[in-house]
């Protein structure tokens, strides 16, 4: 099939294997070894997308991951991944690609009207254009901007791929496999050091795969690459990772790599992940990230067909693709001349080499002359013609005055440009190194290493093949010696050709056009022109950080690797300050766009967070129980019978508990075993309550504060023996209470002889609550007298349940006679099923967390974290009784004496009854003194808990209200959208105020 721009021979593609693919539905052909970009170019397609803001036609500019324009969507497995760089997408049979940011089609895009309206969209137009009228923002401007924003369309379905994760350690990590990286890898590997080499490209070799005019050890550089890779693959101490981007350099030489495992394959093994995250801890790092070529900022430098010279050379020598039939080369740098020579050698007509330098090197001129190429020195491109593809370029002659005189027009179907080279310092910058300005090279280069790394080759501004190889060997040796202390002798390759390129320019180029009418792009992807940068300075942006954000230059996915230096120079000129004083914005992770899937790894769906289940879980499922999530736990919420909704189920459960008996799974409560001669002393210091006089066999409610004096947790604590306590905590607070105890014990009171152990998972707990609780458990309990006299409220005894040892608490969170039976976790299911069967005989019911909440609210028992919010003291909560007044110290004691904590007007815990017993307040609703408060009136407090109470047959609520304890009997208001709700302030105990039901 015809690929009109494919060379006759050469390149690293497999000409025997032809692949079919589609671009916007059009069937095209390429070869194995192509990228999507090279295959499109082989078919003569430069136009691949529309630009972000002005919807200008855009073509492929680079051959690498810095590509700003050729962002495409790829269909795979029924879904589309947007914004992939065509320069990195490897071709496979039946690949389906689409262009982006165009409607209705790439060739005809109505959004292109923006280009004609471009005077309306200067830098910072968001801040200027959409200001008035204010009401238009929500309804008009924002929807329009949102629909116009972005390039690709997000995928419609959840990500069907999965992602791997791999931790790795190595002595030396080498990033980049060009000449410097390969030499460094060889040098380090020869010492026996464990080396990882990664490269973002599919093939190792970097720039060596694109040179046609150099040799290493007398061989073609690509042959040397193959031999070197062959040698390295055979070494057990070397790991080679192609298609792997080092995207983040973090503290302590921790480097994150993204390996693309299957995306280049048509039918990958389904067992393989799409991508794999490598988390590498390297003793030493060698950064051999190379350099990238800078675009020239001349008018209309974004016309499809205008691309970087090195990209043109790469497409030719590596992919066997001619970027055009008539090519103009515009340059400020020697290396682009080589691109022109290589193209000429493949029969491409090079219409001219326009070098802005007055006197380019003589040897280059004579080589050009020998090939019959027209050379224009002191010449700039001042514009391009053509709509969807460049068809001619305007030349301008630089005069000594600094003005430009028209130099005529040349026809061309491709324009290769080079403003020189920019070292890739991104990883160095991420490692927290500070780049330094090298005036001679006209570039920022890595300064002092901050971490254990060194840059080598072009990434530190060193060019020329032999020099790069030598530097790479030295960097690899040094890294290995630093990591392992070992050295080795080995033979080093020598190169000829591939001389260092000199020359370069920065900033906007002079031209003879009407400056107000032309656009010279600095940042292609974000549509930022040279004019925008100047405008930003005129409008008062003097810091490069402000200029960047105002214009969005350098904020595209390449983080300004293409645009920063030109933008900086323009800013520097406008500010009349030298470049180094203008500074450079910081490069941050990730180096190239990285998928969310890579970071999520397996932590999604069921694996996002551990799910904790209690021993009753399966029984609850089997009996139609509904679950709610409480931290990581699945807890039974309510148990609806046929035809019951939640309200009906909860009302029935509550009524049954009050009238006969209920069964509740309390296994999730935190449990901590506190043991040792100083156990009582330790609890005395941790909790507000006194513990030393608590008799073994008795329990007490414990209140835990932080040292600021605020309630952080609570729970019942039972004393099993002189030196042993069974502490319970809230479900959600279990880990933090344990950590807090450890903290005080280890760091403040190391003298105490106490051990604490989390036993949350060791016990299954069933709570049997209600007037018939004693009858229900009696048949199964042995070893303890259950009578009220022998086992009063707030007692704990060790006994057996069906022969299994248990800790039997007589405690209540419902206000009814209650027992909590703790058995070893493995007997939890037996415990639950035995009791579930028994309560049924007594007309009882299992109940869930919702009924538990209602029952406790009827009794005014707080739930820490619901009725308290980290600013509530025991006094505020009406629990001054829980404070051991005679204690010398406890956590929070001093805090409670702080002036703010004893001040008037603190919010205090109260009950609220709506005047209309049917109206249920909303939790979180604000409370005011005025029925219809004026706008801006601060609230007096808020509702913390609100329920329908079956026992009272009316609604009840708990709240915190300023000075609430003094307001009992008064009327306050809860203003809601449908009107203000009058409420009466009451005490917090709504049911059985005397507690008679507990002591039966």
């Amino acid at each position, binding site marked *: 099939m015809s690929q009109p721009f494919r060379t006759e021979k050469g390149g690293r593609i497999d000409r025997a294997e032809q692949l079919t693919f589609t671009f916007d539905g059009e069937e095209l052909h390429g070869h194995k070894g192509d990228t999507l970009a090279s295959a499109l170019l082989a078919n003569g397609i430069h136009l691949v997308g529309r630009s972000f803001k002005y919807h200008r036609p855009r073509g492929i500019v680079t051959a690498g991951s810095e590509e700003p324009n050729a962002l495409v969507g790829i269909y795979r497995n029924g879904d589309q991944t947007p914004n992939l760089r065509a320069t990195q997408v490897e071709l496979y049979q039946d690949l389906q690609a689409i262009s982006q940011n165009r409607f209705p089609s790439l060739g005809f895009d109505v959004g292109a009207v923006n280009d004609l309206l471009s005077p309306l969209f200067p830098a910072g137009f968001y801040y200027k254009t959409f200001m008035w009228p204010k009401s238009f923002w929500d309804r008009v401007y924002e929807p329009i901007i949102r629909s116009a924003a972005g390039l690709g369309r997000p995928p419609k379905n959840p990500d069907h791929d999965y992602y791997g994760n791999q931790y790795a350690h190595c002595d030396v990590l080498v990033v980049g496999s060009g000449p410097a990286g390969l030499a460094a890898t060889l040098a380090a590997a020869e010492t026996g050091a464990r080396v990882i080499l990664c490269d973002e490209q599919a093939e190792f070799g970097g720039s060596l795969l694109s040179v046609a005019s150099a040799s290493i050890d007398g061989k073609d550089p690509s042959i040397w690459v193959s031999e070197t890779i062959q040698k390295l693959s055979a070494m057990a101490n070397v790991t080679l990772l192609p298609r792997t981007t080092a995207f983040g350099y973090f503290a302590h030489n921790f480097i994150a790599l993204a390996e693309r495992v299957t995306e280049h394959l048509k039918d990958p093994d389904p067992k393989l992940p799409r991508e794999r995250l490598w988390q590498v801890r390297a003793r030493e790092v060698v950064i051999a990230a190379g350099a990238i070529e800078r675009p020239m900022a001349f008018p209309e430098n974004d016309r499809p067909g205008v691309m970087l010279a090195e990209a043109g050379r790469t497409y030719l020598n590596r992919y066997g693709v001619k970027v055009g039939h008539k090519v103009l080369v515009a340059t400020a740098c020697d290396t682009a001349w080589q691109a022109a020579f290589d193209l000429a050698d493949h029969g491409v007509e090079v219409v001219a080499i326009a070098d802005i330098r007055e006197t380019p090197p003589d040897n280059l001129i004579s080589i050009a002359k020998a090939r019959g190429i027209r050379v224009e020195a002191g010449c700039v491109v001042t514009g391009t013609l053509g709509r969807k593809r460049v068809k001619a370029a305007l030349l301008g002659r630089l005069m000594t005055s600094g003005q430009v005189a028209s130099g005529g027009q040349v026809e061309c179907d491709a324009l290769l440009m080079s403003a020189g080279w920019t070292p890739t310092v991104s990883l160095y910058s991420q490692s927290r190194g500070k780049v330094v300005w090298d005036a001679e090279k006209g570039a920022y280069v890595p300064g002092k290493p901050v971490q254990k790394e060194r840059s080598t080759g072009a990434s530190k501004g060193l060019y020329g093949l032999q020099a790069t190889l030598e530097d790479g060997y030295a960097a690899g040796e040094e890294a290995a010696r630093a990591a392992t202390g070992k050295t080795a002798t080995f033979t080093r390759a020598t190169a000829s050709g591939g001389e260092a390129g000199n020359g370069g320019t920065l900033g906007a180029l002079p031209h003879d056009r009407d400056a107000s009418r032309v656009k010279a792009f600095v940042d292609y992807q974000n549509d930022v022109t040279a004019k925008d940068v100047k405008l930003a300075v005129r409008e008062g942006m003097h810091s490069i950080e402000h200029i960047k954000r105002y214009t969005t230059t350098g904020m595209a996915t390449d983080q300004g690797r293409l645009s920063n230096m030109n933008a900086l120079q323009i800013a520097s000129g406008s500010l009349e300050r030298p470049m180094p004083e203008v500074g450079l914005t910081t490069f941050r992770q990730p180096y190239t766009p990285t998928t969310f899937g890579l970071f999520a790894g397996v932590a999604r769906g069921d694996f996002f967070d551990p799910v904790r289940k209690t021993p009753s879980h399966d029984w609850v499922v089997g009996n139609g129980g509904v679950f709610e999530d409480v931290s990581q736990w699945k807890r039974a919420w309510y148990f609806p019978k046929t035809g019951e909704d939640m309200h009906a189920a909860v009302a029935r459960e509550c009524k049954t508990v009050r009238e006969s008996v209920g069964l509740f799974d309390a296994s999730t409560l935190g449990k901590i075993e506190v043991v040792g001669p100083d156990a009582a002393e330790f609890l005395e210091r941790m909790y507000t309550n006194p513990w030393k006089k608590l008799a073994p066999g008795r329990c007490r409610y414990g209140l835990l504060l932080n040292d600021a004096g605020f309630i952080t947790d609570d729970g019942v604590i039972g004393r099993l023996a002189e030196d042993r306590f069974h502490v319970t905590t809230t479900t959600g607070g279990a880990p933090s209470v344990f950590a807090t105890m450890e903290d005080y014990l280890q760091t403040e009171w*190391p003298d105490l002889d106490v051990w604490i152990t989390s036993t949350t998972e060791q016990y299954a707990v069933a709570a049997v609550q209600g007037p018939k609780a004693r009858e229900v458990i009696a048949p199964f309990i042995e070893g303890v007298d259950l009578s009220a006299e022998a086992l009063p409220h707030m007692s704990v005894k060790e006994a057996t349940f069906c022969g299994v040892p248990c800790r039997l608490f007589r405690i209540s969170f419902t206000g009814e006679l209650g027992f909590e039976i703790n058995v070893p976790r493995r007997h939890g299911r037996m415990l639950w099923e035995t009791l579930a069967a028994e309560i049924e005989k007594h007309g009882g019911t299992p109940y869930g967390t919702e009924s538990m909440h209602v029952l406790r609210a009827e009794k005014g028992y707080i739930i820490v974290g619901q009725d308290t919010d980290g600013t509530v003291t025991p006094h505020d909560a009406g629990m001054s009784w829980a404070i051991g007044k005679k204690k*010398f110290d406890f956590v929070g004691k001093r*805090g409670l004496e702080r002036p703010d904590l004893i001040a008037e007007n603190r919010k205090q815990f109260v009950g609220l009854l709506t005047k209309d017993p049917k109206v249920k307040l909303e939790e979180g609703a604000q409370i005011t003194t005025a029925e219809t408060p004026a706008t801006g009136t601060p609230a007096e407090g808020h509702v913390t808990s609100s329920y329908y109470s079956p026992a009272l047959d009316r609604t009840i609520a708990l709240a915190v209200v300023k000075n609430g304890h003094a307001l009992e009997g008064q009327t306050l208001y809860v203003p809601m959208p449908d009107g203000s709700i009058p409420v009466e302030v009451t005490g917090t105990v709504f049911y059985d105020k005397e507690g008679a039901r507990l002591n039966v």
Partner: protein
Amino acid sequence: MLLIYCPYCQVKRAETEFHCGGEAHIARPSDPSKTTDEDWVDFLYTRSNIKGVYAERWRHIHGCGRFFNAVRDTVSDDFLKFYKAGEPMPDLNALAAEAGK
């Protein structure tokens, strides 16, 4: 991700095994009732939060569970010293000078 040395386990492990406990050597007064309100607020809330070398607490929460202290340069994240809880605070200036900070 930081690389942290546990002086009890005597191993270097990734940060994910540890939990940072904030600034070190802030002792809880032995008789809080004798402290002034200002001193108590300082104890509760005031931290040096410096740019540079300082001592902080770490707990090897997914290892031995012990608290220990570390001297870290908050600019570079380099650790200059790890030591057990209860040991005195090292001379931070000397450590900084030694490390060329």
